[in-house]
């Protein structure tokens, strides 16, 4: 904001000008005309009149004037804005905003300004933004004034408040006004009233205002300000907790995505799939390939790239999963430790294969437009990317629950999980169910890879970072229980984020690991153990 640098004296001068200027109410061309003629005093009046006119076209003209870029053409007295463009000036007509080609400085008179006028112009531009037709600009101006808390902006704010229709902006302006009142020498009663208004706002800026007030005043006002600051501190602390919970949920959703496929394969088959992380990696690389193809052949589809990548990643990872099950894992049932070693070997092979094909360095996966940016919810800062990943994790989770509960495949899978020999005796083709389950778990890992490609580096080592965390989640939540996985992932995510501010990211993670190690001792079958009568 230009007027942030403006001395208070000039602003109060502006305030009086504003009131005087509102009586003039002349149209823009006439005012602009009077800007270029007459004494500096007359010009000051004209600037004030322009400021109160609230005409959006006035702002660039005033800015040009302050920068010494406003010219009058000698031939027809037309006012022009000239921006330096090499040796020439790129000219635009000041009032209409039309381009007037380029020209040399000869034949043009520069409108002169002095420092006093420059100051008044800056303030005028500021108040023009307070009355700008664009609501966002008005709001920004009000917010800036709130942080500035200057008694001299009171008049401008009063005037703007009178004309404001938008309730939210009106609120911002009255808060800014309250902050200005607190900085002025208004009577104590008014100040206490203002403190109440600022206190309701309840964010860090409000806290700063109240702290400053408490430091510079005494008596009734000081008490009110101190109490208000304390209340705001509590509000902020509550929001901080909420923000940590959100970060925790966000981390939890990532853990959930990575672990949920593992929960299926581990739960159903008792198979430790060490190559699970590599399935996630394959999903991420599928996204990369899809985006590359889209970039070269159909750039307009880029926003849909993730949606296209989802089914493909599911098929690629799921297909490879079934292949692995048929070629390796089915020979190792009943020998979980050997499966662990074989799948670890497999993960090495997959990593090296991807490294040989795509190279060892990180690959660039872009974010579609609907996943970038952020929004404010109260004092929470929520990025769209994270929000979509949380939503996606929940959707995948819900879909999986439906699949397990409502489809024949789900029924078979549950039966095999609970009692394999019995299920087999009832005529369920357990090898087929095993293959499909493994494919499903791997496919979901592939889906997770699409989501994780948005927040992590897509490199051959992508999967390794998640494998231990995923195991922790599954073991913590309880094997063979998807809700356990959901609770486990969210709990671990939140605990991790709450530890981070106190212990640092690495130590927090170590503490979580130690906690899980101890937890498994207490409940070796996890948070929600599957009840059954089978002995291991």
């Amino acid at each position, binding site marked *: 904001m230009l007027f942030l640098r403006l001395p208070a004296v000039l602003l109060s001068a502006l305030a009086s000008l504003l009131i005087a200027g509102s009586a003039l109410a002349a149209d823009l061309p006439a005012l602009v005309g009077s800007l270029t003629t007459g004494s500096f005093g007359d010009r000051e009046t004209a600037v004030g009149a322009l400021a109160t006119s609230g005409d959006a076209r006035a702002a660039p003209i005033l800015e040009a004037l302050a920068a010494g870029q406003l010219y009058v053409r000698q031939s027809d007295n037309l006012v022009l804005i000239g921006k330096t463009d090499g040796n020439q000036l790129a000219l635009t007509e000041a009032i209409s905003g039309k381009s007037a080609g380029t020209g040399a400085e000869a034949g043009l008179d520069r409108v002169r300004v002095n420092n006093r006028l420059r100051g008044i112009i800056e303030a005028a531009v500021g108040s023009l933004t307070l009355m700008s037709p664009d609501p966002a600009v008005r709001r920004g101006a009000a917010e800036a004034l709130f942080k500035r808390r200057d008694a001299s902006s009171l008049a401008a704010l009063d005037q703007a408040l009178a004309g404001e229709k938008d309730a939210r902006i009106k609120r911002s302006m009255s808060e800014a006004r309250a902050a200005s009142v607190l900085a002025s020498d208004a009577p104590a009663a008014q100040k206490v009233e203002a403190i109440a208004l600022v206190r309701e706002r309840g964010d860090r800026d409000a806290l700063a205002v109240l702290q400053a007030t408490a430091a510079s005043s005494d008596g009734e006002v000081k008490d009110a300000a101190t109490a208000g600051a304390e209340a705001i501190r509590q509000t902020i602390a509550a929001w901080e907790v909420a923000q940590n919970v959100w970060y925790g949920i966000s981390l939890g959703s990532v853990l959930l995505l990575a672990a949920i496929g593992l929960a299926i394969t581990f739960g159903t088959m*008792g198979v*430790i799939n060490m190559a699970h992380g590599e399935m996630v990696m394959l999903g991420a690389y599928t996204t990369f390939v899809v985006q590359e193809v889209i970039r070269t052949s159909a750039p307009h589809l880029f926003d849909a790239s993730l949606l296209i990548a989802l089914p493909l990643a599911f098929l690629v990872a799921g297909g490879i999963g079934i292949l692995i099950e048929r070629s*390796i894992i089915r*020979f*190792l049932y009943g*020998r*979980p*430790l*050997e*499966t*662990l*070693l*074989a799948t*670890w*070997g*497999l*993960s*090495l*092979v*997959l*990593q*090296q*294969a991807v*490294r*040989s094909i795509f190279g060892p360095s990180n690959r660039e996966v872009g974010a579609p437009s609907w996943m970038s940016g952020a929004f404010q919810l109260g004092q929470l800062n929520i990025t769209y990317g994270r929000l979509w990943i949380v939503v996606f994790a929940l959707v995948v989770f819900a879909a999986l629950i439906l699949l397990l509960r409502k489809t024949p495949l789900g029924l078979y899978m549950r039966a095999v999980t609970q009692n394999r020999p019995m299920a087999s005796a009832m005529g369920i083709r357990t090898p087929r169910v095993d293959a499909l389950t493994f494919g499903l778990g791997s496919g979901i890992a592939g889906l997770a890879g699409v989501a994780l490609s948005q927040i992590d580096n897509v490199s051959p080592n992508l999967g390794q970072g998640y494998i*231990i965390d995923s*195991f*922790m989640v599954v*073991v913590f939540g309880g094997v063979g229980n998807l809700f356990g996985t959901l609770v486990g992932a969210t709990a671990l995510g939140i605990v991790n984020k709450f530890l981070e501010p106190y212990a640092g990211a*690495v*130590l927090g*993670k*170590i503490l979580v*690991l*130690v906690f*899980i*190690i*101890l937890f*498994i*001792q*207490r409940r*070796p079958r996890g948070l929600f153990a599957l009840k059954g009568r089978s*002995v*291991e």
Partner: protein
Amino acid sequence: MITRFLLQGMDRGLRLFVLLVLAIGIVLPLLNQLMPPGSALHVPSWVLQLIGKYLCYALLALAVDLVWGFCGILSLGHGAFFALGGYCMGMYLMRQIGSRGVYGNPVLPDFMVFLNYKELPWFWHGFDQFWFAAIMIFLVPSLLAFALGWFAFRSRVTGVYLSIITQAMTFALMLAFFRNDMGLGGNNGMTDFKDILGFSVQADSTRAVLCFASAFALALGLVISAAIVGSRFGKALTAVRDAESRMRFLGYRVEGYKLFVFVLSAAMAGLAGAIYVPQVGIINPGEFSPANSIEAVIWVAVGGRGTLIGPVIGAVIVNFGKTWLTGALPEVWLFALGAMFIAVTLFLPKGVVGLWSQIRTRGATRKARAPA
């Protein structure tokens, strides 16, 4: 009596094998020291260093095999015990540098001066004495193994759950040791060692002695393992591996058996790490990475779990392959290692040693059939 106890578990093959290990540990260093460099029989010191390294790996593999092959505990965290032993030795070696470091501080190692330490952290005291470090080399890994095993075995955490816990343990330790404020060198670890027991670690004669020490430690490990496995205790151990619940129902305190062998194995791994560090000249948190521990498991699997010779042979074969392949075809190494994991579990559940005895029995039955 102790000798009888130690020798009772050894059959003829194992006795020969221990003698072979000792012979390697004696003859190669002697050839290095006594033969002139030009002679055909001269063993260059890089070979000694390599052999010493392999022997340390073999001892680590033996430790893994003791718990996995004989007691059914698949530990994916033995690399952590190895690294802890290594760190204890590293701390001793760091203190021996004295004022010869880059910063020339007589007490503080270089990295501490660099990180603005004012005085030695409490856990560094005593490491200037070799005897103290030597005790710590066994004590620190044993204590960790005891703490972990005490909780885990008592609450009957078994199978893959235990594997995951041990993996989480080594992962947590890796993260912890990467931190600079641990006071253990952070991500750079410890290096630039000068002396061990007053002898320069760079000298050929020291290398020769270290190579012998590796062979001796391995032979000792083999003898002790054989004694344990061959005793009544060892029989119970194998029974725990095969039918843990049944042993419990029979009245054995299963967790005691497991805990003892787990702690012993951790101490062996610690010793291996301690001899390893002066030979490679560096110890850093990378040694804690879960991948290292799993690699140690594959040495055992390749050689043959449940045998004492197997892990030694497996460790040497795999590491020789690694040395050769990472030099000749670096791209291929991970493919080969991965394929080895898969192939061994699928086709060679008893490892190379198992394959050898399979061939021998097949040959024997053929011979037995021939006259008929």
